[in-house]
């Protein structure tokens, strides 16, 4: 995006200098077109950003954000003395790390497999099935998954009919931890595989023809031609996911969890939500954590963008 604007030559000053106010006047229509968007961004993005000053204030409802008194870093003192905060931070990092290890490879493998399906009609049908859950909200998916895994649900029905003991998946924090990854793969692996499938479709077919003549099997072609061709896409997606580490999946955890496992699955976002809207509603305190989380997130994304540029010559915002 930024480089796109670079490509357009700016008005060369030596050729015919037009005064700034004339240029602004000449483009008045453009500014009119921009206005609604600018106003929207101001009210719903920049005003809340300004509201982040609450992190250094003590919020008083009657005084508003601007009028509330400054309290320096005392909100952070409070945050760093709360063991639940550290628990949430650790949980966030662990869940994000396991997501990268366990969830990240699945769409790649799926794309490799789907790419081998030569009957286009069947491939399209499979693709429709695999990508569909992505377009449901986590409210719906959580409902579906709770139905499948609850004590009298489908999975337990299967276990019992095979002669096993009923397992209470939803009230054990270990099985819920595993379910986080299972259900997220179920919901979004198909959709994430689309981008890899598109990359596979772009591979030069001559490579496969040459390999076939050389006697390479289709499995060998998959490993030695398809997979390496996917590496640039894989690295960009990996970097993106690392940049997103502070978000461990609020929608999912919030909708799947229940009082029995709430505490052990607490991540930063659920923690922020809890201290904001459920307990004694301390807005300054939760804003302090929000601000910290946003800053770390921001740094991670900048870092991700930088490494993506180094690796592929493509920034994430090109």
């Amino acid at each position, binding site marked *: 995006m930024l480089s796109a604007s670079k490509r357009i030559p700016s008005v060369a000053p030596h050729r015919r200098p037009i005064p700034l106010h004339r240029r602004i006047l000449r483009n008045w229509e453009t500014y009119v077109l921009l206005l609604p968007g600018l106003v929207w961004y101001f009210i719903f993005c920049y005003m*809340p950003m300004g509201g982040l000053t609450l992190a250094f204030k003590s919020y008083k409802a009657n005084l508003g954000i601007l009028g509330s008194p400054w309290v320096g870093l005392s909100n952070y003192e409070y945050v760093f003395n709360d063991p639940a905060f550290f628990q949430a931070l650790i949980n966030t990092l662990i869940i994000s790390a396991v997501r990268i290890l366990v969830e990240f490879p699945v769409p790649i493998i799926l794309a490799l497999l789907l790419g081998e399906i030569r009957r286009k009609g069947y491939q399209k049908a499979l*693709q*429709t099935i695999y990508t569909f859950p992505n377009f449901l909200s986590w409210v*719906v998916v959580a*409902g579906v998954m709770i139905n499948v895994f609850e004590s009298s649900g489908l999975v337990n029905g299967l276990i019992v009919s095979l002669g096993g003991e009923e397992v209470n998946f939803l009230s054990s924090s270990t099985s819920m931890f595993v379910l986080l990854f299972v259900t997220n793969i179920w919901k979004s692996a198909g959709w994430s595989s*689309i981008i890899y499938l598109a990359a596979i479709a772009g591979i030069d077919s001559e490579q496969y023809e040459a390999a076939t003549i050389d006697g390479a099997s289709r499995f060998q072609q998959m490993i030695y031609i398809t997979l390496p061709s996917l590496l640039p896409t894989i690295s960009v997606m990996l970097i993106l996911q690392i940049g997103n580490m502070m978000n461990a999946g609020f929608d999912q955890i919030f909708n799947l969890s229940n009082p029995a496992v709430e505490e052990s699955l607490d991540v930063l976002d659920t923690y922020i*939500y809890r201290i904001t809207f459920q307990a004694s509603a301390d807005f300054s305190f939760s804003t302090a954590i929000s601000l910290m989380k946003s800053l770390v997130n921001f740094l991670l994304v900048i870092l991700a963008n930088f490494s993506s540029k180094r690796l592929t010559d493509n920034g994430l915002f090109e």
Partner: protein
Amino acid sequence: MKNATQNVSTRKKKREIDLFTVIIYIIVTLGALLILIPFYNVVIVSISPMVEYTRTPFLLFPQEPTLQSYIDLLGGGSIGIGYRTTLSLVALALPINLFLITLTAYALSKDTFPGKKLFILYVLITMLFNGGIVPLYLVIKELNLMNTLWSVVLASGCNTFYLIITRNYFLSIPAALRESARIDGASEFTIFLRIILPLSLPILATIALFCLVDRWNEWYNPMLFLRKNDMKPLQIVLRNIVMQAQIATSGGQSGSGAADLAQALKPVKGMKMAAIILTMLPVMCVYPFLQKYFVKGMLIGAIKA
């Protein structure tokens, strides 16, 4: 046996290809089944009489299918409120989404004008950094939007990611078209409405679809901003139904009369599943036919992003 091995050695290559293909077909088909079975189970539970379901949770098809759960659910009235609220939200939000996205994207796709880079940065920064939920909540409160549909509609008025995709599409339209219209004396508004928009129907359809699904699935903002019972959108109605059953059962497990309680709650389960079906029904009906537009939109975004 001997014959078989001979066959393998003479037609080794062919066999190998077949085995590989067969394995892949089996894996992807099983995977697709794993996606479908939970949905199928939801449908089955929603149309099973609860007596039959309690006996065999591992049910392929009920002997006496019934729509009782749906009748009970619709009789409760909350689903009706949910549909009404969600449809109003979509009707209000979709035009606003498209208006803000296309207008801003068009202005930012124009040739250089003073401040262009600054405005692009102004929009992009919001992708990297945001105020988080508390300040937004307070802004909504101070604008007196709480408990009005406008709170949800305006809070998600524009989407930076869709804006970038749309802008990329506008940039791909030859600049000569705009310039010649400009020479003919057309205003920016005319160019936007008469030239750019008609040429951008594919991307407009895609963006509209994405916004539609987003609005349909939106639950977090409504949960915070719409506190009155008579204006809960569908997702929140569903969430409340699922949560009630969930809390009731997990509370019951520790109690002494757990079995009795669970038994008493069984009818709730059919209703819960019926609510899930009714919530995802529109997406489910439409998705298979429009899938290619979603994919196209995602790829347009991915090429640049």
